[in-house]
């Protein structure tokens, strides 16, 4: 094979790989990247049941309840615009509590309840999920405040 041809073939292979990768990324991102939802987005955009997403917001005060099996909890997540019921089976992180921020990974069931498989709460007092920046829970009015 001539050197010139070889360089051409190599360049073509690289180009094909690059375009392939780009298309793959684009299609995967289109499906998966609309990944983080606040309750308000769920209401306006709608999320099909079973689609894996992250739901982020504040845990509504007084909504946290534990099922008799001792390992399942139910709670409501709100961003001030809408409220979504959620359930989680497992060991909740220590900083997961009412009135505090949470990012839940999971999907909606057919009844519109969010079934979380994983809860991400703050790791320590200094850490806040970035998606929740600008949200805070007002203790006195029991409302979410969102700075835009």
């Amino acid at each position, binding site marked *: 094979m001539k050197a010139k041809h070889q360089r051409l073939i190599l360049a073509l292979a690289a180009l094909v790989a690059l375009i392939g990768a780009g298309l793959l990324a684009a299609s*995967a991102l289109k499906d998966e990247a609309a990944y*983080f939802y606040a309750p308000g987005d769920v209401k306006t955009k709608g999320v099909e049941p079973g689609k894996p997403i992250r739901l982020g917001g504040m845990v509504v005060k007084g909504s946290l309840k534990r099922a008799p099996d001792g390992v399942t909890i139910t709670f409501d997540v709100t961003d001030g615009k809408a409220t979504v019921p959620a359930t989680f089976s497992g060991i909740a992180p*220590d900083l997961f509590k009412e009135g505090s921020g949470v990012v839940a990974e999971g999907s909606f069931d057919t009844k519109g309840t969010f079934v979380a498989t994983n809860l991400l709460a703050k790791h*320590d007092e200094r850490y806040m999920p970035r998606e929740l920046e600008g949200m805070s829970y007002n203790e006195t009015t029991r409302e979410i405040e969102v700075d835009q």
Partner: protein
Amino acid sequence: MIAEIGLAALWLAAALALLQLVLAFTGLKGNKPDLLAAVRPAAVAQGVLTAIAFIALVTLFLRSDMSVLLVATNSHSAKPWLYKFAGTWGNHEGSMLLWVTVMGVAGAAVALFERALRRDTHMATLGGQAAISLGFYAFLLFSSNPFARLAPAPADGQGLNPLLQDPGLAFHPPTLYIGYVGLSVAFSFAIGALLTRQVDAAFARAMRPWVLAAWVMLTLGITAGSYWAYYELGWGGWWFWDPVENASLMPWLAATALLHSVTVLATRDALRAWTVMLAVVAFSMSMVGTFLVRSGILTSVHAFAVDPERGSFILGLLALYIGGALALFGWRIGAVREGAPFELVSRETMLVINNLLLTVILGLVLIGTLYPLMTEAFGHKVSVGAPYFDRIAGPIALALMIAMAVGPLVRWRRDDGRVVTKRLVIPFLIALSLSAWLSVLAWGRIGILPFLGLVIAGAVGVASLAPLWKRNLRRTPLFTYGMVIAHLGCAVSLGGMASDSAFTVEKLVAARPGDMIQTAGWQLRFVQIQPIAGDNWTALQADMEVRRGGRPVMIHPQSRFFASPPTTTSEAALLTRWNGQLYVVLGEEVEGGRWQLRIWWKPFVTLIWLGGILIALGGFLALLGRERRGWLMKWRARAATA
């Protein structure tokens, strides 16, 4: 006093880096040997000075000197000494000092030990290393001074994040950083070679051991980090596609590609421009990773502090160095002669495929990691998570594994396609029988990716041993063993990953002391809950008697409370057997005196990290083999002249 010594050493090192840069380039330009003679001593002195600064900071942490701001905000006098020591780099400034120290010491090592490289390229390389170091010295001194004082000194410090109070902190960041920053040497080699127009086989042979060494440490660091996250977070997972994990994976992917292409350049003098490009990309990925982690721009457990000023500083450095290197590449690469051509069926082609696939994975991980940043610039908040990465990286990684099995069975220059096919008959039969066996065993119960993963791991594991087939094992060179072991390690690791996702059994219960729990053939008797105390924590501990046939063993999952800073962490109990791990996490108390327990049986999960260690061991043997051959040749030459 110690803090001032450390700071002075840093300033001196920065001044020496500037001197080294000027000396190297004016010396090379005007061809002045007397100027060039000072370059190596400058690099060595810089390495010594950064080491002094680093030791100074370690000493301050060990002594709990609260008059130093960094110690006061990140340490506590009641901490065990290991965490005082390792806590030195468990914060932003300390970890950047570790970064700069590794860079300085690596530069000194290149000055002292590099003998194979042509002298002018060697000098230009050292100049390049000085240029990169300079930016990071500036970053440390102007925006992240680890030695800043605090007056008045507080009575005690604020403590270290308890998640970091683990022996893992002593091992994972240093190995990772040696790998990460060790790649700066490859970057500098590329700069040096472009400047002196020496992109050839001799250059590749000189660069290879440095790339190998950095890659071995990076592999170890990632493996250690993955195991640490697995047992410390108590989530039972070993890889979360966290941006910071991606930040360490991306340089590893680039370095793996570089490792293979530099071998093509060294043995066959082909892939010249591509190899230089990869060397630039590898360290660029290290810098991108540092930017992502240190700017706090992405959500991550590793992001210590969010400081926009620091973020823009690193972004500036990033643009300067990557842009500069790419500009140099564009300007000089035309002058690099065409490399040697090769046939379509050849080892070279297989390595090109390896490089393409690795680069594609790298690109996809990079896009996925940066995509949230790009969309946020347009006002959307988006996060890209495991579903994206699993979906795109999984299939390509499996294809890469197949290429890895085939590659070593193909000869350099040209081979016969039919002969190669014959060599693959046995692995192919193994793949077929494994798929048949798995289909009978677990059809419909495991996903397609874990299924393919198990099949490919088995077949590739056997195929990776094939290069030793019918060879005189005693006369096989050490680096061939290195390659075989590293490739086997990939198969072993893949097997562990696939087995974990295919066969893990999880059980979640709320149990009272005295209860008996059964899962996956294990019997767990929940004996009691008791409070215990450690050095700087108190804990509730569950005592559990577990057995699977045989004699019972006690395990003790804990929920620990740390006072400074006030945090609760869960310490999972792990019981390792040859065929897997039992993983038990203690949750909180619920009504009825019951305790939450999360129990996993993870068959062969340990293979994931065993494979990682094998990969690193293979790299180490390859390095040793090449170096030893060099020493032997030198020794023989000397004996012949004497």
